[in-house]
């Protein structure tokens, strides 16, 4: 019998297509799960509107729900409810261990150029904060590139959204 709890557990095992070390639940994109008579409705908010992984995420969630014997309905909600503050503490740790510096907490006014050009960002490899912004944009919309003067190598910094 499929239950909301089992669906959450299954979705916690679905990796993000672009950063597979973290699951969709860790990423905070699963907003709600409702189960009624075997029909499973999952409400999900993409990280970025231009994220090409959205369709893959939807397919993988459908597959995970079907494996539990449920009939999936994935509703994509394009509202303002996702922020990098929704990434779970476990998710942040998994990112850091894999060489992605987790996002800084979002301040009320949002990120500023002064803030991202500051030295407050910690290198995920050596822990130094002697790092500088190389490029606001990186290989995917959610990441920037920084340079660590401590261990002399670039690293990927999750943007604060």
């Amino acid at each position, binding site marked *: 019998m499929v239950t909301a709890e089992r669906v959450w557990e299954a979705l916690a095992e679905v990796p993000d297509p672009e950063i597979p070390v973290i699951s969709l639940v860790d990423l905070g994109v699963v907003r709600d799960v409702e189960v009624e008579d075997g029909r499973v409705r999952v409400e999900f908010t993409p990280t*970025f509107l*231009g994220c090409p992984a959205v369709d893959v995420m939807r397919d993988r969630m459908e597959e995970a729900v079907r494996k539990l014997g449920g009939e999936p309905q994935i509703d994509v909600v394009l509202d303002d409810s996702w922020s990098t503050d929704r990434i779970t503490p476990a998710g942040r740790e998994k990112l850091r261990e894999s060489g992605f510096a987790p996002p800084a907490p979002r301040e009320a006014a949002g990120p500023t150029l002064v803030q991202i050009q500051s030295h407050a960002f910690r290198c995920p490899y050596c822990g130094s904060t002697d790092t500088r912004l190389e490029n606001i944009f990186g290989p995917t919309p959610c990441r920037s*590139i920084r340079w660590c003067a401590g261990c002399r190598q670039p690293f990927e910094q999750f943007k604060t959204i």
Partner: protein
Amino acid sequence: MNARAQARPELDTILAFADDELVLGWRDSEWTGIAPFLEEDVAFSSIAQGEIGHARALYELAAAELGTDADALAFDRSPVEYRCSPLVELRLVQDWALTVARHWLYETADSVRVAALKESDWAELAGLAAKMDREEAYHRMHAQMWADRLRASSERERFEAAVEELWPAALGLLEGDQRARLCELVGREPVEAIGRDEHTDELAPLWEEMTMVRRSVPGAAW
């Protein structure tokens, strides 16, 4: 289509906005592989992806009201039906001063437009605008960083001339009170704006390229 468009007065604005983002995203992507250095290849490609993602979300919202789909709105209309501003139509590859000037003017105007849409009574539109604003913050930072950099460089005059050249079309991105706000933000006097009534000669070749697949295979999805 027109009868239903009456139902939501915002639909015209949304379509114009979506067309701007689609066409500018296309133009930005023309820098992929040929930007002045690798970081800007990545930046303009990522910004292009962002703008086209925003266009898709706006088209989807409009399409649900109009009983069509996002691809049909993006690719199945004739060039005259597009509502994009002449500012985004210009092919500016190879001129970095004009490219940065457009980027800075567009992102600043866009911030005014998005701020207004966040206050919309239409909850879905307000929510979408707020989500877009979180992402656009990074486009704005990038544009500001480059505008500051060129103003502090030996190319200052060239950059200011580029801003001057594009200013009437940038002002025409917005309507009414929003124009005064843009003047304030960029520190410029109002001029006679170039609005959305006429397209430049540069839209047609872009449209040919952009709609080629859908015209070859009607209804194609990818």
